[in-house]
């Protein structure tokens, strides 16, 4: 009877409210999609919902704590040995790298080309929280206070991870290269072919559309960022071509690639601050 009472009483206002809220949602979506005006509002709301995100991370933190507690001394020592040897190898490679870098600088100076400045890097820890289902986005514990900005590229030890798409004071969202809405300009490291790699929504798959059947691309090719588009710096590994299907009925090749970055493992990623290359065309 309450319902009958409530219904007869609330019905017209519910419809009105629904229509108004639907219009409001539509307006919000248009503004959010088209422009940057709502970034501020979102940043404020992100602070408001922060406690929910922290709470969601607690079970995983507890689990990790438990795992750490039961990890034996022996395991840790073994792991330490492995890391130590890995570090030695990397240091040896770095020596060569320094020498090559210096040589490269000298050669570039001789040619009068702008010298490549090393990128600055900010380590960001992942927040254990799931974002929208069937999108590939992550939350990191770095925000506007740490100098993170929208469009900042993120990498890990193996390749490009994605780019920052939303920034709040303490956290920001990184859209992975596997997100269905993401695209990244790349270069085939073998043939120099330039193309664009799209996310598929699958966690371990990227697609390379719009390549005609005569395109010089092979299975196993390494795709590196080309630096076009201005978001990602050039020269970082992005993906490896896994399969190429040449269907005569279609005008384009169906190409699948696997991201080189470890998108599903790892607790950290690196945000790069691409150093501005000083373009100074010198006349000899």
């Amino acid at each position, binding site marked *: 009877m309450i319902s009958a009472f409530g219904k007869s009483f*609330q019905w017209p206002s*519910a419809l009105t*409210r629904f229509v108004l809220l639907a219009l*409001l*949602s539509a307006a919000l*979506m248009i503004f959010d999609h088209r422009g940057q005006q709502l970034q501020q509002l979102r940043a404020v709301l992100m602070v408001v919902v922060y406690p929910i995100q922290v709470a969601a991370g607690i079970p995983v933190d507890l689990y990790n704590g438990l795992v750490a507690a039961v990890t034996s001394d022996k395991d840790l020592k073994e792991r330490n040995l492995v890391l130590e040897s890995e570090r030695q190898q990397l240091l040896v490679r770095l020596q060569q790298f320094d020498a090559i870098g210096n040589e490269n600088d000298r050669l570039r100076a001789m040619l009068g080309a702008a010298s490549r400045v090393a990128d600055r890097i900010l380590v960001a820890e992942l927040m254990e929280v799931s*974002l929208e289902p069937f999108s590939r986005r992550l939350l990191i514990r770095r925000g506007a206070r740490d100098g993170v900005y929208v469009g900042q590229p993120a990498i890990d030890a193996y390749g490009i991870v994605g780019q920052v798409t939303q920034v709040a004071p303490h956290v920001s*969202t990184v859209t992975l290269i596997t997100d269905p809405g993401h695209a990244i300009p790349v270069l085939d490291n073998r043939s120099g072919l330039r193309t664009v790699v799209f996310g*598929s929504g699958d966690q371990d798959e990227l697609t390379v559309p719009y390549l005609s059947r005569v395109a010089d691309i092979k299975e196993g090719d390494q795709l590196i960022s080309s630096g076009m588009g201005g978001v990602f710096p050039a020269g970082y590994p992005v993906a490896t071509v896994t399969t190429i299907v040449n269907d005569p009925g279609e005008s384009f090749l169906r190409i699948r690639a696997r991201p080189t970055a470890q998108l599903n493992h790892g607790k950290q990623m690196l945000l790069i601050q691409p150093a501005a290359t000083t373009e100074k065309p010198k006349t000899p």
Partner: protein
Amino acid sequence: MNPSTTTRGRLILVAIFGVALFMNVLPGPTWAEPFIPDWVALTLIYWCMAAPQRISVGVGWTLGIILDVLYGSLLGQHALAKAVIAFLTVHLHPQLRMFPRWQQAVSVFVLLVINQLLITWIRGATGQAPGTAAYWTPSIVGMLLWPWLFVILRDIRRRWHLS
């Protein structure tokens, strides 16, 4: 005197929706993604059915906006979807209450599919619709969980005399 209008009743409802939001963003492995139902939608449908004079489009819309912020999705996307299912549930609540449990579950499935359909349309229009068939399984999981969720939420409602 309606106990649900008291501050305590209000706090309990806020806590229930808080738990639903928390469960929606609980981290899990990627392979488990298709098996996690939309807890917020399910809880919203229950309360719109059980207490339509208190919980309706306004609450649905607010929950949707919070989800949009939590998920980092387009602002207004989940808000619109949740407002739509809240509106439909409030509109249909006399019938839904009469249905046997399995039929109710099927109706909930339809509502959940409408919810997901709206979200795919919006994501498609902004250029990022997920293309996998697995995208729809959360609605099926939600339907299968409905009878249990219904009993749990009904017991909570009776225990604290909400509505």
